[in-house]
């Protein structure tokens, strides 16, 4: 065997968006070292970091976006590096969704990092771009090698980003859980790839309609009979992919990781990972393994139905908004799997369009939550969101906008996205999926609307009243305790105190009651105190929150996401679906 390796300039041009991101990620690490250093913590930098680094990262994303659009217009859509990476319109369309999510995530980051006083910002943005790069590589992969490489690039960067808030135990826990479960899933995926390689003799996918770089597709077209090796391989591959797109019953990591990770990272990863993994899933199953569709279609059908029903049902019982959105994203993965089952140009186009709409809606919703999240990961419970409309009307309005969009109400993108997906199900001959999809969407409206109702209609938990109550209880307890200690010394005083507190007959009885109240009060406070060791920082953070002066970057991000969601739902859907249809044909 002898091999020659020739990479032409055209090959490099075809992966220009990835190259831009890789370059800017390295540049950010360099610039981070050059920026002036202030602050007591050695790695804590001056105010310039909160501006220069995110701006640089954003420019990188915009540069990649520009390169993507240029490739749309002038690119030849051929595969680069001997059929390893695609530059077809399908991949480019997926880039749009991934880059939108990355851009929004970066815009939400500086305010969040500042509020939580997180250092190591150079690494943060570099890893952010590295994860984006991995996602794009995964979405564009036309070989199992590139697929695995992209998957691991994005996962490795995200493990660190999930555990980035080192002072928060839940963040570390999220990083650990994501790391262990994701690498476990990768091993399954990889074993599946090995067996498929054994059955077909190649790891390349192979393109439709051309025999330039033959791969699995060409082999299966010639030998459509499924061998045992191939079947086991497809089974393991399904498990691996189901983990990555968080389909039930492989969803257990999703809520934990989404809840524990910093909110801007969640905003980015919930969309980006899903988009990349689903495009890869769709490409591998609905295109490459299409000749043996009879072998896997039933399995993916079951996964889709389980995920739609289970995701929505589990979301119903959640009290934390981040966790609720995590389960809602599981449910959305279920809707998206409909597209994989249906396959064909309409199914794939529906997936691509849905992902683009979902990028703006979900990133926006998590972005709004990023303005509420505190260092100890509290602040996103439904209790905390109660009466948000009266305290911070704009933030509540934005969050409600995105939630309504996710629920699928018409003016926002969610409706158009769901419409095309369900339409594809009907056209592809799966009316049962249409029915289940619509029914579970209606179920889903309940939890979105309940959150909105909590924000707009329920009064806020009266913080002042509660504080008064606690101080009263403490005062009573103090009086009672003194009465309990003192009665033998100064009987009349203790008796007076006890009668004043509860009207109890004797001093000792009053003391007992008062001590019990005190004990209750302290036990009620204790868990809160344990969870937040940095009470002083907490307090200042609280002050910043109460001021309701959101950073302009957060407003910019929320506005852009809302604008995108609205435009995708009203002005652009016909044109974009048309584009998606053309793109799906090239996957």
């Amino acid at each position: 065997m002898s091999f020659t390796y020739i990479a032409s300039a055209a090959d490099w041009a075809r992966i220009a968006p990835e190259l831009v991101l890789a370059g800017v990620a390295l540049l950010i690490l360099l610039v981070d070292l050059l920026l002036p250093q202030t602050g007591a913590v050695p790695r804590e930098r001056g105010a310039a970091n909160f501006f220069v680094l995110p701006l640089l990262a954003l420019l990188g994303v915009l540069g990649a976006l520009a390169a993507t659009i240029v490739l749309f217009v002038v690119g030849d859509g051929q595969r680069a590096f001997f059929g390893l990476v695609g530059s077809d319109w399908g991949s480019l369309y997926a880039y749009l969704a991934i880059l939108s999510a990355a851009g929004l995530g970066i815009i939400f980051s500086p305010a969040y990092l500042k509020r939580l006083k997180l250092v190591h910002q150079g690494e943060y943005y570099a890893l952010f771009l590295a994860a984006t790069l991995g996602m794009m590589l995964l979405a564009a992969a036309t070989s199992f090698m590139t697929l695995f490489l992209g998957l691991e690039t994005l996962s490795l960067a995200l493990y660190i980003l999930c555990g980035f808030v080192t002072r928060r135990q839940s963040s570390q826990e999220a990083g650990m859980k994501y790391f262990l479960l994701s690498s476990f899933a990768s091993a399954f995926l990889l074993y599946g790839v090995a067996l498929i390689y054994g059955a077909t003799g190649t790891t390349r996918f192979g393109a439709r309609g051309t025999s330039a770089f033959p791969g699995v597709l060409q082999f299966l077209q010639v030998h459509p009979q499924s061998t045992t090796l191939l079947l086991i391989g497809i089974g393991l591959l399904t498990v691996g992919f189901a983990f990555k797109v968080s389909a039930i019953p492989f969803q257990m990591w999703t809520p934990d990781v989404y809840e524990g990770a910093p909110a801007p990272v969640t905003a980015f990863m919930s969309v980006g990972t899903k988009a990349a993994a689903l495009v890869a899933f769709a490409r591998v199953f609905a295109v490459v393994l299409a000749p043996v569709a009879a072998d896997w279609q039933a399995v993916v059908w079951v996964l889709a139905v389980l995920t739609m029903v289970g995701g929505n049902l589990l979301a119903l019982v959640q009290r934390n908004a981040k966790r609720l959105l995590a389960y809602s994203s599981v449910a959305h993965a279920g809707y998206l799997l409909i597209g994989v089952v249906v396959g064909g140009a309409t199914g794939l186009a529906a997936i691509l369009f849905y992902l683009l709409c979902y990028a703006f809606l979900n990133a926006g919703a998590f972005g709004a939550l990023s303005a509420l999240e505190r260092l100890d990961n509290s602040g996103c419970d439904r209790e905390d969101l109660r009466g948000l409309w009266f305290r911070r009307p704009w933030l509540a309005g934005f969050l409600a906008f995105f939630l309504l969009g996710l629920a699928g109400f018409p003016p926002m993108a969610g409706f158009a996205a769901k419409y095309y997906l369900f339409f594809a199900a009907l056209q592809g001959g799966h009316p049962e999926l249409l029915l289940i999809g619509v029914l579970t969407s209606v179920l889903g409206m309940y939890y979105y609307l309940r959150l909105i109702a909590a924000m707009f209609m329920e009064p806020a938990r009266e913080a002042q009243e509660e504080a008064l109550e606690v101080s009263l209880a403490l005062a009573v307890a103090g009086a009672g305790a003194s009465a309990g200690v003192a009665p033998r010394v100064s009987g009349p005083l203790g008796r007076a105190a006890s009668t004043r507190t509860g009207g109890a007959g004797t001093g000792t009885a009053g003391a007992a009651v008062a001590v019990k109240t005190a004990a209750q009060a302290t036990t009620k406070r204790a868990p809160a105190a344990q969870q937040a060791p940095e009470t002083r920082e907490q307090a200042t953070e609280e002050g910043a929150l109460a001021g309701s002066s959101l950073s302009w970057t957060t407003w910019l991000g929320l506005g852009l996401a809302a604008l995108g969601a609205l435009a995708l739902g009203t002005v652009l859907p016909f044109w974009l679906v048309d584009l998606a249809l053309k793109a799906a044909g090239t996957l």
Partner: protein
Amino acid sequence: MTTIPVSWYLIVSALLFTIGTIGVLVRRNPLIIFMSIELMLNAVNLAFVTLSSYLDSADGQVFVFIVLTVAAAEVVVGLAIIVSIFRTRRNIDVDEMNLLRG
């Protein structure tokens, strides 16, 4: 001289993979879980090398190098996460990691 049939290699690889899977599911120490995952990856490598020589194609061997590299990178990140958790909790048992649930 007779050669060992390909299926034997594949059986060993499947056994290794199964042992790794059981290890991940049964053990509670993240270091051991991680080692089990590495065992699964090496089972994959064995399968790749075997199939590569059986099919007389280089794809499998190249894939092994990619898997090895990625596994090394995973060790770096994984151990860093484990160390960072140990610093704050003094305990890395995965059953104790139950802040996030519901």
